[in-house]
C-alpha cells in the first residue's frame, strides 16, 4: 500500500529548469505570487503553495512533465479551470500543478457518428456552442459550464441540471487518452462506446485526478430536442416545491430538469447580472424543463399544471421563447456565485438523498443552519435528490468558520443517515476525504486504494485526495478536520 509521498524536498531550481525545457519559459510559473494564485480551487479554505505550475500544450508535453516529476520524486496534480469545490486541484505536499487550460482545442467533430474529440482544457460550454449549428449538444451541463473544463468534468464525473434525463459525465465519455503516473500514454475505451474487457474509462471518470492526467477525450454528442418548454412553478415554501418533484417523478414523466431555488438565492440572483425576473417574494421556485417531440409538449404541460395545483402552486410561468429560457438558466447557474453578495465566502455543500426524503431532509437542514446561526440557502438538483445547501460566511471570523464546519458535518451525517451519499457531483477531494469512512467500510476503501495503486503505485499523482491516507486514520471514526490546522499557504 502506498504511503503519501513526503513534501517535495529536491532542488526547485533543477525542477524548474527541466520543466522549462519542456513547456518553455512563458508556460512555467515559479514566482511566489504566481504560485499563490494556484493555492486552491473553488474551495478557498484550504490553500497550499505549489512548487511550480506548468501549462503544457500537448499530450507529449504532459507526458514529459510527468516523467520529470517522477524522476525527481515530486508529486504533481492535474488542474483544469480550478472551479472544483472539493479541493481536488489543491496542490498538497508541494506538488507541481500541471494545468491543462492551454490544451483547449476541439480536435474533431464527427456529426454522423455524433462524437467529438477534445483536449482536456476545452471549456464545457464551448463544445456545445461549437456543435450547435449541427443541431447537436454536449449534455453534461454543470452550472460552472461557462468556465470549467471537460478534463475537470471527467475527473469529477460532473453533472448538472440536465443530469436527471441525460445522466452525468460518465454516460457521455466514450474514450480517453491519458498519461499515467509512470509517464506512459494509454488509450482507454473506444469511440464506438463498446470496449471489451475492464471498463477502465468508467474507473477514470470520477477518479479526481488520482489515476493520471487525461489528455484527450472522446465524448458523445446528442441531438438538440425538437421542442423544449421551461416552466417556473412558484411556491410559498421549499417543501411544497419538493413535493411537486415527487409527484412529477411518480407520474412517470421524465423531465429534462427539476431544479429548486429558494428565496434567499432568488433574491441574490435577482440583484446580480444574472437577474431573470424570478419572483423575489416567492418562498421557492421549481424550474421544470421538458424536452422531446413537439407533439408531446401540450399533454405533459397539462399534467404538470394539474400536479402543481395539487401542491398549492402559487403561479406557473412558462418561458415565452428561447431568450427567456436562456435567462432562466443563466439565473439558475449564476446562483452559487450570486451568494457572494451576502458574505465574502461561500461553502457549497453537495450530498444526495433519496428523492422521497427531500422535504423532511430540507427542513432538518434548515434547522441545522438555524441552530448554528448561519446564513443558509438552498439551490439544488431536486430531480436527482442532489442537495446543495450553501452557507455564506466570512472565513476571517474563526467562530463562524467553526460553526460552518460543524454544521456541514451534521448535514452530511443527516444525509448519510437517511440513505444518501456524501457527494453528488463535486467530488471528495480533500474536503470529504476524511468522511469517506462514514459511507464505506475499511474493506471498501481498501478496494479503492488497490485500484488507485495499480495506476499510481508511488502515489505521486494528486496525493492526499479522495481516499483517507491510512487504515488507522480512517478506522478511527474521523473527526472533522479543522481547517485551521492546515497551513493557508
Amino acid at each position, binding site marked *: 500500500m502506498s504511503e503519501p509521498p513526503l513534501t517535495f524536498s529536491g532542488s526547485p531550481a533543477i525542477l524548474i529548469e527541466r520543466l522549462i525545457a519542456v513547456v518553455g519559459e512563458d508556460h512555467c510559473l515559479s514566482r511566489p*505570487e504566481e504560485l*499563490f494564485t494556484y493555492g486552491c480551487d473553488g474551495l478557498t479554505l484550504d490553500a497550499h503553495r505549489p512548487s511550480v505550475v506548468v501549462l503544457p500544450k500537448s499530450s507529449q508535453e504532459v507526458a514529459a512533465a510527468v516523467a520529470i516529476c517522477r524522476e525527481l520524486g515530486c508529486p504533481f496534480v492535474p488542474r483544469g479551470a*480550478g472551479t472544483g469545490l472539493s479541493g481536488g486541484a489543491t496542490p498538497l505536499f508541494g506538488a507541481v500543478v500541471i494545468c491543462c*487550460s492551454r490544451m483547449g482545442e476541439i480536435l474533431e467533430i464527427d456529426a454522423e457518428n455524433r462524437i467529438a474529440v477534445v483536449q482536456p482544457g476545452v471549456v464545457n460550454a464551448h463544445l456545445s456552442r461549437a456543435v450547435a449549428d449541427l443541431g447537436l449538444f454536449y449534455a453534461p451541463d454543470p452550472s460552472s459550464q461557462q468556465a470549467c473544463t471537460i478534463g475537470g468534468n471527467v475527473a469529477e464525473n460532473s453533472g448538472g441540471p440536465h443530469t436527471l434525463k441525460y445522466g452525468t459525465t460518465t454516460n457521455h465519455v466514450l474514450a480517453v487518452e491519458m498519461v499515467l503516473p509512470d509517464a506512459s500514454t494509454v488509450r482507454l475505451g473506444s469511440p464506438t462506446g463498446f470496449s471489451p474487457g475492464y471498463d477502465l474509462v468508467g474507473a477514470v471518470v470520477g477518479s479526481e485526478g488520482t489515476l493520471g492526467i487525461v489528455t484527450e477525450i472522446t465524448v458523445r454528442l446528442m441531438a438538440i430536442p425538437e421542442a423544449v418548454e421551461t416552466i417556473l412553478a412558484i411556491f410559498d415554501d421549499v417543501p411544497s416545491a419538493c413535493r411537486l418533484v415527487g409527484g412529477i417523478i411518480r407520474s412517470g414523466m421524465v423531465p429534462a430538469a427539476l431544479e429548486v431555488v429558494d428565496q434567499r438565492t432568488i433574491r441574490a440572483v435577482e440583484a446580480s*447580472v444574472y437577474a431573470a425576473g424570478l419572483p423575489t417574494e416567492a418562498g421557492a421556485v421549481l424550474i421544470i424543463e421538458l424536452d422531446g417531440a413537439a407533439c408531446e409538449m401540450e399533454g405533459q404541460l397539462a399534467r404538470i399544471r394539474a400536479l402543481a395545483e395539487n401542491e398549492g402552486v402559487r403561479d406557473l410561468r412558462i418561458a415565452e421563447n428561447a431568450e427567456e429560457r436562456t435567462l432562466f438558466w443563466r439565473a439558475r447557474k449564476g*446562483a452559487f456565485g450570486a451568494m*457572494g453578495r451576502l458574505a465574502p465566502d461561500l461553502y457549497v455543500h453537495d450530498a444526495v438523498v433519496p428523492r422521497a426524503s427531500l422535504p423532511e431532509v430540507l427542513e432538518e437542514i434548515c434547522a441545522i443552519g438555524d441552530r448554528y446561526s448561519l446564513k443558509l440557502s438552498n439551490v439544488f438538483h431536486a430531480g436527482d435528490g442532489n442537495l446543495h445547501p450553501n452557507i455564506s460566511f466570512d472565513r*476571517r471570523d474563526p467562530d463562524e468558520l467553526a460553526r460552518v464546519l460543524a454544521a456541514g458535518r451534521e448535514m452530511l451525517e443527516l444525509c448519510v443517515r437517511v440513505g444518501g451519499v456524501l457527494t453528488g457531483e463535486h467530488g471528495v477531494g480533500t474536503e470529504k476525504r476524511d468522511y469517506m469512512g462514514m459511507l464505506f467500510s475499511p474493506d471498501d476503501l481498501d478496494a479503492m486504494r488497490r485500484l488507485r495503486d495499480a495506476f499510481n503505485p508511488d502515489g505521486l499523482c494528486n496525493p492526499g485526495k479522495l481516499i483517507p491516507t491510512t487504515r488507522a486514520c480512517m478506522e478511527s471514526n474521523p473527526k472533522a478536520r479543522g481547517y485551521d490546522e492546515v497551513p493557508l499557504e
Partner: protein
Amino acid sequence: MSETSPLFDLDPSLLDDSLDCVHCGLCLSACPTYRITGRENSSPRGRIYLIRGAAEGKIELGGVVAEELGLCLGCRACESECPSGVEYGAMLEKGRAAIADAGLRKGWAYRLEGFALRRIVAFPRRLHAAFSLLGLAQRLGMDRVAGLLLPFVDYARGLLPRVPRAAARRRLPAFTPAQGERRGRVALLEGCVMAELFGDVNRATVRVLARNGYDVVVPEGQGCCGALHAHAGDLSTSRRLATKNVEAFALPGGEPVDAVVSNSAGCGAALGETDQWLPGRGEELARQARDVCEWLDEVGLRAPSGSLAARVCYDDPCHLVHAQGISSAPRRLLSAIPGLELVAHADAESCCGAAGTYNLLQREMSQRVLEPKLDALAAADPDWIATGNPGCMLQIEAGVRARGMAARVVHPVELLDRAYAGSAPGES
C-alpha cells in the same frame, strides 16, 4: 491577518472590494488575457486574489501584482459574468493608483504615458497642438523617418490614421437647432480623440441628433473625461477633469438639458461613473450621461427612409457592453436602416485590444487579443464594421488594413447619418 501591508495602507478599500469575490471562476473564460495565456494569475479571479493577497500582506505588491494589473485590458468582460457583483473596473483603477503611488509603475513607457496624459491630453488646446504637429510630421513623411529609427514609433504609426486636415478638426458649433418637430435639448461631449481624429463622427452625431428633433449644445469649458487617466492609475487627474465637466455640463447655456450625450463608449462610461469619482457632486452628470445609441434607442429613433444596401458587422466596445450593459440598442438602430443587413460575427463582445493606451504599452498582448476578432470578421466578410469608440475604431481599422480586408470601420451614427442623407430633406 495584517492590516498594515503596503497595499492596505495605500488604499484600505481594496481589501473590502476583493472580499466581494467568492472565487467561483465564472468570469474566467470571458477574460481575453486568461483565454490567451491560460494562467490563473492573468485571470480576473487571479488578479482579485493577488490584490487580496497583497492587501492582507501575504504577497509583495510589486512584481507579479503590478505586472498583472498592467497586463489587464480593463475591458470589464469579467464584470458582465460576475454573479457576485464584483466591481472589478473600479478595483483595477484603485489598484493601479496604489501601485503608481508606491512608485512601482516603472519603465519609460509608463513615464511617457503619464506625461502625455497629465500634460497634454488633459488640456484640449495642447492636445490639438500635438495632433497638428503629428499631422504636419505625417505630411512631411517625418514619422516614417522616425519609424525607421525607433521600432516603437513605427508600431505606433501603424495604429494612427493620418491626422485629418484642420477643417475636420475644428470645434463643433456651440448650438445646432433641432430639425422637424422639436423633442428636446441635449448636450454633447466632444471628447479628445474623437474631436481630433474623428471630427466627422462628431459632426455626424450632431446631425443625427438634430434629425431626431434635439437641439444640440456643445458647452464651452468641457474637456477630456479623464477615463484614460483613471485607467492609468492617475485618479487625481481624473477627478480634476471630472470636476471641470460637472461644471461645464450643469445648465449648459443657462438651460437644462435632457441628456449629456457622448459618442465614445469610454467617455460615456466615465461620465456615467462620475458619481463614484466625485461623490456628492457627480450624481447629476452621472444620471444624465447617455451614449448616443442608447439615447436614440431610448427616445425612439426616427426611422430613416433613405436606404443603405450594405452588410454590416456591429462590434461591441467593451466600455459600452461590459461597463454600461448596452448591446442591443446599437443593433436595433442599425437594423432600422432600410437595406442594411446586420451580420453576426463571433467574438463581437470581446475586447479588440485597444483598451485606451494598452495597445501602445502592451503591444504583444494587444495584437494577440485582436487576432481572433479579425478572424471572426474575416469570416463574416462585411462591407462595414460599426463600433462606437475611437480607440476600437483605430485598432480594428489598423488590423483590418494589415490583413488587406476590404471592410471599413465606421461609427454607427455615421451609417445613420448616411441613411438620413439619402432621405428626402425634411422627412426622416
